[in-house]
């Protein structure tokens, strides 16, 4: 497997964004149309009440060459959740897939807590207008914390394989204060759930499907899966759970694992296929990968430095 980097393809600071968002285009996810590609991303509004962020889902339509922007959405595709709901303070990311003539959007909803900064859960919203707008199926989540996944269920990525809905997602294993003067940090791992209808899910309940490479304090996020030549490939990002924001050596990198049976995954990112490029927009960090196919070509969307504050880029599978 060999990737060719095509560089940054979208910079949110160069476009007018909905909800007074000025920066961030995080976790790009593609919906391919006949003559363009709609790329959803999370962008951030400053919450005027307290200076914290509110994440919204917007999209950019791009020509199939994935270089030229056609338009950027002028409003978020889904409003934030109501008072007290799991997605009141942000939706980041949203995974989209076509099913039965509809577009399903699996949201990762954020709500702020007091002793820790946040908790998350996964919701489902459905679009009947080709992804311009999404309506929640209910105020609550389809996948949330459970007996052995005590917090931070999020980052769902869904694929229908052989008539069964598969979801890869992350679950928190806990919060920990790594230094006396530091706020608590979280650790999460990648899990798997199955569903017949995309609404009612059965988790494998805290089975970590991707082995740790950085030890127990490795956080793994945003799994994305594609089948290539009879083998399933998962890309995800991983980092140290502490001191990962400014310390480039501990920040996100893109990982890879593969499977033939969707149950057992072999991780093989000791020698990464896609690594940072010194001096470039992705010199310190690589995160939030999304793999997709368009006109027979396999692409990987991802964010670079600063968690995607200045946009996302693209790589193309060469072989």
């Amino acid at each position, binding site marked *: 497997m060999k990737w060719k980097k095509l560089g940054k393809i979208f910079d949110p600071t160069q476009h007018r964004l909905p909800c007074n968002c000025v920066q961030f285009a995080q976790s790009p996810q593609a919906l391919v149309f006949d003559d363009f590609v709609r790329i959803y991303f999370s962008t951030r509004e400053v919450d005027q009440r307290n200076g914290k962020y509110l994440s919204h889902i917007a999209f950019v339509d791009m020509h199939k060459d994935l270089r030229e922007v056609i338009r950027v959405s002028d409003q978020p595709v889904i409003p934030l959740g*109501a*008072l*007290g*709901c*799991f997605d*009141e*303070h942000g939706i980041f990311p949203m995974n989209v897939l076509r099913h039965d003539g509809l577009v399903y959007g699996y949201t990762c909803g954020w*709500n*702020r*807590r*007091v*002793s*820790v900064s946040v*908790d998350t*859960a996964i*919701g*489902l919203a459905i679009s009947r207008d080709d992804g311009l707008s999404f309506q929640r*199926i*209910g*105020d*609550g*989540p*389809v996948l*949330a*914390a*459970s*007996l*052995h*996944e*005590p*917090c*931070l269920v999020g980052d769902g990525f869904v694929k229908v394989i052989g008539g069964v809905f598969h979801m890869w997602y992350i679950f*928190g294993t*806990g*919060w*920990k*204060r790594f230094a006396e003067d530091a706020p*608590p940090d*979280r650790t999460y791992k990648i899990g798997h759930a199955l569903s017949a209808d995309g*609404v009612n899910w059965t988790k494998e309940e805290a089975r970590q499907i991707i082995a740790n490479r950085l030890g127990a304090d490795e956080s793994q996020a945003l799994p994305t899966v594609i089948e290539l030549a009879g083998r399933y490939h998962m890309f995800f990002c991983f980092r140290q759970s502490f001191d990962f924001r400014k310390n480039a050596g501990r920040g996100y990198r893109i990982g890879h694992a593969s499977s033939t049976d969707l149950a057992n995954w072999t991780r093989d990112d000791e020698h990464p296929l896609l690594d940072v490029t010194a001096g470039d927009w992705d010199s310190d960090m690589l995160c939030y990968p999304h793999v997709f196919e368009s006109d027979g070509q396999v692409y990987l969307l991802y964010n670079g430095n600063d968690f995607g504050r200045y946009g996302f880029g693209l790589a193309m599978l060469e072989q």
Partner: protein
Amino acid sequence: MYYWKKLGKVFSPQDVTGRSWLREFAQAPATLVFDDFVRCYFSCRPPADAHGQYVSFSAYVDLDRADLFKVRAVSQQPILTLGGLGHFDEFGTYPVSVIRNDGEIRAYYAGWTRCESVPFNVAIGMATSSDGGITFSKAGDGPVLPYSVDEPYVMSGPKIRRFNDTWYLWYIAGRKWKVVDGRAEPVYKIRMASSPDGIAWTRMNKDLIPSRVEEDEAQASPDVFFANGRYHMFFCYRYSTHYRGRENGYRIGYASSTNLTDWLRDDSKAGIDVSAEGWDAEMISYPHVFALDGRTYMAYLGNQVGRHGFGLAELNGTLE
């Protein structure tokens, strides 16, 4: 016809000494009958912190089986620890409902966390005791009944029962947060789930009890008791606003069912109301019905939702 003859307050947390975590409140009584005493679980609080915020613990008081007004013991420590950092039950384990199962005792409890935009959120956890109900270990760090599509928050007030080899959990689920005088107040409704093992739950996903006093009526403590071929549910309800006093505060309601899923509400049959004066003159809430030695009792809370303890009433007549 029947009515509940009030016997008076049976337990006052203020009378207990030597337990820093048990200063006031004895909420949501739930009983477990032993050979010579009745263990009555309740939830209590230490003093509020500097910001006026409480944590809540669950504990028990053992009442003499021959004389329920005789306190034999109070638990030396809370029956459950609070959850870890960021867990659903970090700031409270309240209320609790217990049931015997295969020589052990299982507890279902509501775990409380604190939120930024609303004061709290609640989900339902499970724990098991193998020492006769003195201490419980949690089945996991997370909830056994979390928030879901149609029950988005405030999953609380579990009541565990087993009928015909099926486990039933009655509980409440939040419907909306209503901002009243700048404060977010939860509106919740009575719901139900069933399970073959008490762990994997199937929710009915419907409100069991129609609202009566107003659309945003809050309902709690759905306590189901089988007698004379019929299921009897006693619960409590209140207005959504200004409910901390007599006028809009909690009252006890009643519904009955023959199949556990379809309920007919008729509060005129509750058979109990606030007193003209005294410890339960402002409100009555959190009913729990239990049978003991040929009699049927209701434990319930009085003023300030149990700040000063709970009382007992005895059934006079027949539930039918």
